[in-house]
């Protein structure tokens, strides 16, 4: 038994709960509450089928967050690789035991709960990369040899998710992984080189038809949505109409005509921001953006304050993950980003994203609680070996 853990237990449960960052909980809850209200409106003023479930899931996920937050960061450091490999195995299994839905095989049916490993992979990848760089000497970070492992760690899930096929999630996973490598201190020279290689790769992918027709359609539709209002750009045009017609103050709760009259598809998931924007207007939409930004800045703040490199990279990675979700989703419904099927975290209806995000913020919480621990090891021998 470590002395640190014993020290914690002497403080008692109340002190441990008090050590949690409750502001984080407040903001998360506010965002989730917006989700519940919007889902209630989407169902034309009914708790079912989405709002009630969303609220219950949030409560469950909040408990999970607090549990994770109360667990020492040291434990999560040790769990980083196992978690990564566990999720990776699930991703590998998806093509064999997964459920086909809307032309893609993304889910594993766990007796009523549709597990979507790709969502958890985002968190697991951040953990694993943070763990990797936590133990890596700084001068080796930009060394191509030591870059091989993290690129493999990113490439494996990106490839698997891309094959499902889920281009949006694959890109997000890749972006998050690369962001963590950047945060770890990859030299600008290597970054530039990597960017050039990436551009060549994308061109190659298009040239050799690795992208499906609908994926290309979605991307081109984003560039000129009005060109084809009933095709792939239809959703986008309708979504812009919904948001735009909301105006400054919105049409009022439950007053959204576009969404209520079914002009928009998938309102409970990817396009939920449109009904929120329509009903609550500029004021509401900016409010939600501020909440997300606050959440991100709190994660950044926690990362800055953390003395352990693992905690830093992980918190920042989780924060960036959230912000990428938000940017892509809201950018997408407003016609600034391609329609790639990314939900709005904590607002969209969907258990996997909710749990993944809350689990991620559980890790951020744990980092906050353990922000003053640097090596996360009781023994000094570990550092001796890498110094």
């Amino acid at each position, binding site marked *: 038994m470590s002395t640190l853990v014993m020290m914690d237990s002497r403080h008692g449960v109340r002190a441990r709960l008090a050590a949690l960052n409750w502001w984080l909980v407040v903001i998360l809850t506010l965002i989730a509450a917006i989700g519940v209200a919007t889902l209630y409106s989407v169902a034309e003023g009914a708790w079912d089928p989405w709002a009630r479930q969303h609220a219950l899931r949030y409560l469950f996920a909040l408990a999970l967050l607090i549990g994770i937050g109360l667990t020492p960061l040291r434990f999560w450091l040790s769990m980083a690789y196992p978690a990564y490999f566990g999720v990776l195995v699930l991703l590998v299994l998806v093509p064999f035991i997964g459920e086909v839905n809307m032309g893609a095989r993304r889910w594993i049916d766990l007796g009523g709960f549709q597990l979507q490993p790709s969502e958890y992979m985002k968190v697991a990848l951040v953990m694993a990369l943070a763990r990797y760089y936590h133990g890596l000497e700084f001068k080796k970070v930009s060394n191509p040899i030591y870059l091989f492992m993290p690129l493999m760690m990113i490439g494996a899930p990106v490839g698997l998710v891309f094959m499902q096929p889920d281009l949006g999630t694959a890109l997000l996973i890749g972006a998050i992984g690369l962001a963590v490598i950047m945060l770890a*201190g990859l030299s600008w020279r290597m970054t530039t080189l990597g960017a050039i290689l990436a551009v060549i790769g994308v061109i190659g992918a298009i040239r050799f038809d690795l992208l499906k027709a609908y994926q290309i359609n979605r991307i081109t539709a984003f560039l000129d949505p009005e060109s084809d209002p009933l095709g792939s750009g239809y959703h986008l045009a309708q979504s812009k109409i919904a948001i735009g017609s909301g105006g*400054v103050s919105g049409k009022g709760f439950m007053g959204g005509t576009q969404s209520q009259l079914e002009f928009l598809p998938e309102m409970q998931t990817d396009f939920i921001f449109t009904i929120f924007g329509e009903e609550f207007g*500029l004021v509401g939409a900016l409010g939600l953006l501020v909440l997300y930004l606050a959440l991100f800045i709190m994660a950044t703040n926690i990362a800055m304050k953390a003395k352990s490199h693992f905690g*830093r990279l992980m918190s920042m990675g989780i924060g960036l993950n959230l912000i990428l979700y938000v940017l892509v989703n809201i950018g997408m419904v407003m016609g600034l980003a391609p329609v790639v099927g990314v939900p709005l975290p904590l607002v969209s209806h969907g258990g996997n994203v909710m749990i993944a995000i809350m689990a991620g913020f559980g890790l951020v919480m744990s980092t906050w609680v353990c922000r003053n621990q640097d090596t996360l090891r009781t023994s000094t021998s570990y550092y001796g070996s890498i110094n």
Partner: protein
Amino acid sequence: MRVEPFDTQRHMIFSRRATLFTGGAVLLFAGLGGRLYQLQVRDYQQYRGLADDNRFNQRVIVPMRGEIYDRFGVPLATNRQNFRVLLIPEEAGSIADALEHLGDIITISDAQKQKALREARRGRAFTPIEVASNLTWDEFTKVNFELPNFPGLRSEAGNTRNYPWQDATAFVVGYVGAPSENDLQQEEDEATRLLYRQPGFRLGRAGIERHHDEVLRGQAGSLTVQVNAHGRVIEEYPNDGDRPVQGQPLGLTIDSELQIEAKRVLAEPFIEPAEGEKPEPVSASAVVMEIETGDILVMASVPAFDPNEFNVGVSAARWRELNNSPLNPLLNKTLNGVYPPGSTFKLITALAAQEAGFKPNYRVNCSGKIWFGNRFFECWKPGGHGTMDMRDSIKHSCDTYYWNLAQQLDIDLIADVSRRLGLGQTYDLGLGTQQQGIVPSREWKQRYFRSTPEQQTWFPGDTLSAAIGQGYVASTPLQLAVMTARIASGREIVPRIVRVNGTGVIPPAPRSSLAVNDDHMQIIREGMDAVVNQWGTASRSRLEKPEWRMAGKTGTSQVVTLQRDPVTGKRIRNEDLPREMRDHALFVSYAPYDNPRYACAVVVEHGMGGSSTAGPKARDIMNAVMAKDPALRRAYDPSRDKPVKLSDISRSAGQSVSGGMP
């Protein structure tokens, strides 16, 4: 607490990069905020408008056409409910699939499918196409039950035109049809074009429907409908200021009952069919006018078509059949059939002779033929009529008498009398096209042969032909009826067919006296009386009751010159000639003789003899007219009477109504 040196450096780099990322994120969020501002503040009006467009569709409501009634308020053209299925190509995706689905529920013919596909190809994706119409209630409910599963299909309970008397009133009422591409192009008003595109909209195509289309059409209304993304109507809001206005009703002078009877009489075969053969169909027409007012009571032409077929859209094959028939079922022969008036024209020649100074007791001896020019002119009666005066010449229709007169008469005088009696002109009935006929004169012949001057000279022989209504003379049954009405009344009777319009009953215009001496006219009348009632040429055509006493004149006009057997040199009997070479049979009449109320003209194409064919038909029609005596009955006045309900007629007069339907 130890601070690891290697950690200092990577912490520093991390802080810098984290700050960079945070800054980037904040910038991107500012971008999102800017975009929100663009959409929700700057372009708010535009999107608000688009949102309302999404929610609200303006739909044109096709107005109900005004109804058309007969002289006693019996409907001739009404509106009935029409259950139909529309297809909106834009929403349907594959039209062929949609039709296939619909075909599983109700039966659609291949022709209908082809038509829908053709219309869809014309590329107006937003305009609904009618794919099935006139569904039964059962079919309609079935379709309504299944329809939500098929995007792009919509059911509708609209109105369509109904012509209860079918072919009996086809030429009077006319018919309606969907506007053609050509109509659309010619229409300049955008709102009217939109109305034209509505699937239920019909344009008057012939007859009263066409000529009074703008009155009957009414005014289109509009409807705001709230729809969802699938085009399903959530709610309808009628636009109060823009309700559809039904077209104005029209009341005609026609008596539908007599019209149906006339049609029946005309269509009766006049040649006994050979054993086991079908009787030869008849091509004939009749006009009955009320003399006092000029009201046309009967305007019948057989064979006819069923205007209901045209409303639905007649097939190309059926159209060809109607168009190519030698009996001309598409032609209103009362207005457009032009026939030599034959012996009925002798009435005019006799009048002209009196004006030229011939007395009614002017006598001519008929020996059966006269020599004139370089040939014999043969009277219709081979042995000749003997000596006869003017009345007798009418009674026996002696040709020789009129040839004798013709040699002493000027053609221009005959032409002048003809025109005064109403030949050679059209009348403003507001009903389809009308032939003018020909009243030959010297001037006419010059105009007619203006390209061949050597033929322009008027020859005395021409006058001989004209005097007995042959040669160049040509007239329509309507003109013959007008002529008879003018002879009977001595006044300038003008026919009319519209009695009631939106403003109410139109009073008949008073008619001035004809510029013809009534004493002269009286001789003609007496001659006509003798034709029927004193063992003249139409003694078989006396009416049932003595007090009805009809006066008339037969006419048999040659289609080709007299045919002789090449071997024997004898005249070939009409019956032995092919149909198209047989003579036309005509009969003009009025009744009652002492107080004329009705004038009638009957023409039976290739009917062979006025007295044998046309006379009996006129008799049957006039019997019905006199039995009903519509001139003495109170006619329909919309300010006072309610129109007759069709359901009431079929109950009380079921027999006669069904008799009028094929």
